């Protein structure tokens, strides 16, 4: 699938793994950390106007709401550039459609099946969930792409991940991707495309698919990609109604005899609730195992991020936290991934459930996931987080520890004050 999308965007009949190609881009994405240096690169190319003001997305999401003067200057530099270039998809803090970039790109209908897109953020691979080719790049790539609308790619080899069976209760996309990374390692998909297929995918919601593709980079992957099916079409009908009506998307399918360097067969029923111990996302294991071997207290829980910051994630969280209390000694941060997610959670009463349970509810931001602001860890502190990386110092002090998990494990851990499975939660007494 990836190879077909790349060939189509390079104006070639076919490409093969290892080819170096120059491809046209449908969408180019950046944030308040990566756009400021890209602006300097843009002008150094000699360009004065961006290639297409409708195909560039800019979001102040990382250190916004501005955490200090330097971050404020970065946001200002991006804001002024976006205004000068009349960038259509610049999302100011608080504006409708604003949020964490990888939450809002699909939510606002900016990515469509068949797109070829880059973003100066490693989690750009999230958008492969819609049957697009999406990959992360650096600021030089972004600056040049803003000028030319093109970039260079090495055509990746593909790994096929064949899914069958059904997920067990509470188990979701996050557990599946942590399970896959535990199997193949943090460089198991290095330079490769992770292509999903098989009868098991039909039951995976778009939320699950976005989470799964989001963490392709955590296996070293160039991109993750799902085939386009009814779930995809229903999603774009809702989020990009005009593009859907005008059929402005393209469905690419993998050939039956497509070449894969590796095939993984996974029965979804074998996937447990997962926790990845510090300091690599590949250190994943069954939550029961981790809970039994590591009963020490935790001090923080984060629910949100580009990995698990969509409405469905908070719906699950509210069902588990409603009527319960965050344990003493634990700070639980709830961070809706976009203004739209925030508003829906507010209107549906979910935010009240969270505040009642003793959580802090914050605005859409990448803040705590990168140890930037709004929930930075001190030394010796331990955090269960629905984010994507548990590297040394990722969420704060290099002496802190982050355990990656899905939403149900994060909620159970918040209530129990230690790493816990939702099965351990005491039953609620009906009033």
């Amino acid at each position, binding site marked *: 699938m990836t190879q077909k999308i790349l060939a189509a965007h390079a104006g070639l009949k076919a490409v093969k793994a290892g080819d*170096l190609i120059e491809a046209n881009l449908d969408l180019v994405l950046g944030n308040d*950390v*990566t756009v*400021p*240096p890209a602006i*300097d*690169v843009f002008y*150094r*190319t*000699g*360009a*004065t*106007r*961006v290639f297409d*003001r409708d195909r560039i997305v800019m979001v102040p999401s*990382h*250190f916004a709401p501005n*955490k*200090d003067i*330097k*971050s404020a200057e*970065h946001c200002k530099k991006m804001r002024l550039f976006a205004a000068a*270039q*009349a960038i259509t998809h610049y999302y100011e803090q608080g504006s409708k459609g604003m949020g964490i970039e990888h939450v809002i790109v699909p939510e606002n209908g900016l990515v469509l099946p068949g797109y070829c897109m880059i973003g*100066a*953020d*490693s989690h*750009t691979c999230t958008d492969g969930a819609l049957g697009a080719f999406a990959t*992360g*790049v*650096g*600021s*030089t*790539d972004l*600056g*040049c792409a803003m*000028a*030319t609308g093109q970039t*260079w790619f*090495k055509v990746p080899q593909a790994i096929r991940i064949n899914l069958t069976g059904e997920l067990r209760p509470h188990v979701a996309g996050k557990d599946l991707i942590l399970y896959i990374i535990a199997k193949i390692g*943090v*460089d198991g998909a*290095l*330079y490769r495309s992770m292509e999903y297929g098989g009868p098991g995918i039909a039951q995976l919601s778009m939320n699950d698919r976005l989470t799964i593709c989001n963490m392709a*980079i955590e296996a*070293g992957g*160039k991109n993750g990609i799902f085939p386009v099916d009814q779930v995809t079409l229903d999603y774009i009908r809702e989020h990009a109604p005009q593009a859907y009506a005008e059929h402005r998307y393209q469905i690419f399918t993998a050939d039956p005899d497509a070449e894969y360097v590796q095939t993984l067969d996974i029965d979804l029923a074998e996937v447990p609730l997962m926790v990845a111990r510090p300091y*690599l996302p590949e250190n994943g294991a069954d939550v029961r195992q981790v809970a039994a071997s590591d009963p020490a207290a935790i001090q923080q829980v984060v629910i949100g991020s580009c990995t698990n910051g969509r409405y469905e994630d908070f719906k699950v969280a509210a069902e588990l936290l409603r009527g319960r209390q965050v344990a003493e000694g634990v700070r639980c941060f709830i961070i809706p991934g976009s203004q739209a997610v925030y508003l829906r959670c507010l209107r549906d009463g979910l935010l009240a459930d969270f505040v009642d349970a003793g959580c802090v509810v914050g605005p859409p931001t990448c803040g705590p996931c*990168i*140890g*930037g602001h709004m929930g*930075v860890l001190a030394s010796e502190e331990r955090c269960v987080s629905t984010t994507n*990386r548990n*590297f*040394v*110092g*990722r969420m704060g002090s*290099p002496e802190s520890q982050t355990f990656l998990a899905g939403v149900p494990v994060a909620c159970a851990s918040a209530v129990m004050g230690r790493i816990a499975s939702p099965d351990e939660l005491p039953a609620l007494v009906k009033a």
Partner: protein
Amino acid sequence: MSENLVQPSQTQANCLLSGKLYCYGDNVDTDVIIPARYLNTTDPAELARHCMEDLDADFAATVKPGDFIVAGQNFGSGSSREHAPVAIKASGIALVIAASFSRIFFRNAINMGLPILECPEAAAGIRPGDNLKVNLTEGWIENLSQHTRYQAAPFPEFIRRLMAADGLVGYVRGKYSFGPAEEAKA
């Protein structure tokens, strides 16, 4: 952000690297190369002051121009932050040799002009204190201390064109002309 840095074309010829070797293991991620808490700046010198801070607290204080890094698999994994190769380059590191690189780090290094070589044999064989002679264009590394020679996979022709153009910006400047027509279109 790579202004004032040595461009790759200046380092492509044979060069003798006798600087200090900084030796690291597998999966050196961009969060330890330059922690996100310092990404509120793009100043190469300031980034260099915090380079490797969470992995090797002595690095920034001891590194000198011409020193080099040798590491294992998947160097530069994680975040796409170009601040990572910028910090390494601004710290004076002349070359990074690794068994493999994460793909975003690889393209960032090529694009902004941090010399890198992918060579598992060299990554496994080189020891602290070894003196190296390197030819980046041909991709060989001679270990003068151990009297051995390693051959890195040569860069494909397209990558060599990028490097010869001083990175992606130079390549784009040569390939595209952004005339008044562009402005009129916008």
